[in-house]
């Protein structure tokens, strides 16, 4: 049986929501990063699903490939920031990183 578009969209929405909640609740910077990955991949699922189930063609799949590369780059950058932050503050608690507040 062919799974329906709605199932994919549901999975994408669940992944997205999980990612957002993870970002909003975790104080650990690594956790936040993982939340970001969830959000991005939720979006990827949506793109690929739309690419498969609609007449949009291959665009969605190419776009999701870009996002994967982007996520990798972003993860590298973010991890470097986290490492540096740890070196300076001996913690990776994002609530402590508030020196730029207004």
């Amino acid at each position, binding site marked *: 049986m062919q799974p329906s578009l709605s199932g994919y969209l549901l999975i994408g929405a669940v992944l997205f929501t999980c990612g957002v909640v993870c*970002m*909003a609740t975790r*104080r650990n910077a690594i956790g*936040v990063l993982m939340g970001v990955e969830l959000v991005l991949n939720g979006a990827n699922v949506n793109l690929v699903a739309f690419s498969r189930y609609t007449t949009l063609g291959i665009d969605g799949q190419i776009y999701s490939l870009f996002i994967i590369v982007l996520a990798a780059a972003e993860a590298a950058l973010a991890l470097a920031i986290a490492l540096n932050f740890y070196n300076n503050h001996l913690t990776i608690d994002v*609530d402590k990183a508030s020196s730029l*507040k*207004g």
Partner: protein
Amino acid sequence: MGDTLKTLLMIAWLLPLFGFAVEILWGPRGDRRTTRWPAWMAVACIGSGFLCSLSALLIWGSGTDWAVLQSHDSHDAGHAAPSDTHHEGVEPQEHPAHESAQQNPIRPTAPVRANDAARWHLTTAADGHASDAHQNAHTAAGHTDSPSDSAASSHGQVPLVYHGTIYRLAAFGSLILSIDYYIDSLTLVMFTMVTLIATCIHLFAIGYMSDELTDEYVDHFVHTSDGGHLHRQGRFYRFFAFLSLFCFSMLGLVLAGNIFQVFIFWELVGICSYLLIGFYTERHSASTAANKAFIMNRVGDFGFLIGLMVIWTWFGTFQFSDLFASLPRDDAGRVVTGEYGEVALALPDGSSKQIPYTLLVVAGLGVFAGCIGKSAQFPLQTWLPDAMEGPTPVSALVHSATMVAAGVYLTGRFYPMFVPEVLLVIAYIGAVTLFLAATIAVVATDIKKVLAYSTISQLGYMVLGLGVFGWAAGLFHLITHAFFKSLMFLCSGSVIHGCHHEQEMTRMGGLRHRMPITAFTMLVGVIAIAGLSIPGLIAFSGYHSKDAIVATALAFIQANPGHFLLFLLPLLTAGITAFYMFRLWFMTFAGEPRDAHVYDHAHESPWIMTLPLLILAPLAAFCATGGEDGLLYRLLAGSEPNYVAAGVSSTASGLTLPGHHAIHEVHSTAGTWALVAAIAGTLLAWVLYGTKAVRVEDMKRQMAGLHRFLTHKWYFDELYDALFVQPVHQVARFFAWIDRTLIDGIVHFAARLTVLASRWDRLFDELFIDGLVNLVGRATFSVGRSFHVVQTGRLRQYVMFIVVGVVALFAVLFTTFPR
């Protein structure tokens, strides 16, 4: 001959200019203020100029056999047959105007006396063609006369003149401005006189000005505010540069061939005079004297300009030769007037033009006004005594021998343009001046002031001589006076130098023991100017020339008895002249020393100052030897306008101008009278100042009023002060008041108005414009301020904001655009 003369005179003329340029440019360089080379440079230039002038004079003399005109025989011949005497047209030159000497063919327009090769007239100055001209003269049709008729006349000879154009400066329509030359014997004699005297004076000045040869000159006449004296650099080179410039200007004036060129050099000598009077420019008296001289000359030059305007408007040319040819004179020398007093001019372009006779008078008086200013005649005589503030060599050269004589020279040069009415004015001006100045000289105590007044007086003699139709007599006196007066000025300079700049005669006396050469040469000059002589044995130059003038004056009043003052004043003044000159000599050189300090420090001047005295003394004594048969007089008389010799009888205004014969008849009478007056004056001076018979102080007290009148120079300075200076001050004060109250008031009112308006403007700016800008700024600031609370720095919070924001956005989207 003409080309040679022209070349020689031009060299003599331009050398001082070259000297001036070198001296003024290289004089002040570096540490050369202590060298004498500028002086020797100037001496070399003017000395070479003298040699050129002298050779020119010799060439002229040998070309004309030195016997140019009027010996006594010709007086008699002329008188014997006055009716037969035919006078040619006054002006031998014919139009059209000669544009260039080189371009014009030789056109001997005047007839030539068969037996006198010298009497031709050339319109050009081509030497090589002179003989052709002579031959042509016989064949050419004479314009006014035939050669044989002319030969019968002894007075109709045309003066020999070379004239032409050196360089054409500009042409404005028909007005041509050019550098011309006009060479006759008067030019040559003046050139030789000026260059010779200038050379002597340059030499003298090397000694006199030697205290300027320093980098630190102390001027004891200038007091600085801290009680000391002025220290400045020496100006030796500058003095000689100015002298050179003056020589150039003076020679240019003499050589000039048109009246406008004369005017240019007239002003140039004026500015040289100004620079030299004000040589000690830091002295207040010197700078004001220079201003006074310059300004009073401007008064005369204003008249000169008017004369030039009349001449240009009516004659259309400035050239002497064209001007003289334009004015028609009849056989008797009268200016031909028409029915209504108009004169038909024969213009150089061949046309004819009617000019009112009055305008001829105006032109003549205008040009003579310039002469009044330059020659310090009444009423512009007051600048010359003040001009004695200049160094003494300047007084000798500029203010006695040459520049002030330029006025007399111009009167003589421009003589054919003066109608009898103008001549009468000239005569009276001269008569008044000579008397007035002589009386002031009697009481002056400054040695240079005495000589200055004497100069004015003698210039008056010359002007009088010219005015009473004694053309040659006036210019004769000009030359002799130049020699003896420059000699006396140099002597006074020697005295002043020897007495360490003491000029008051009341502190001198007995100086002949200290400076014998100066005393002796001064005595020569004094005798010469006083006109003393032993008749038939020896006579100095002043005797001859003054006699000539007095005789002319006597002949003039015999013909016109109403003008007897013109004889009486010069005769009286001849006595006064002798008196004040001998007074000067006695007070300075004879008697007991009045001031022991001055006497003890007095010394004879060095050889470089006494040498010029020794050169000039024999010239002053003997330059006029022979009187009216002598060389100098004959030379001058050779250039006399040809109608002068016979005299002019019964002109339109009823004047009779005496001819040579009339003058010759009364010559011995006048000479005797003048000699008696001179001897009387001399004796009086000897009694008063040479012996102790009469106490001068007592006389001074007895005639205190007269004495005060004379020492105040007839109150002329006060009169001019009251007449001109004070009114100008009053008017100036009035206008200053108007400026201060009215004009300044308006300006101040406008200023206050502007200040008020800007104050309002400022208020508006500050309240409204600035307020608006500040309001915007403050609003932006407070908005930003109020938003800063949301930037908490908590990452999770930001994520919440994003989520909430997105949800809210979706909610808004879905509610706004429902399916």
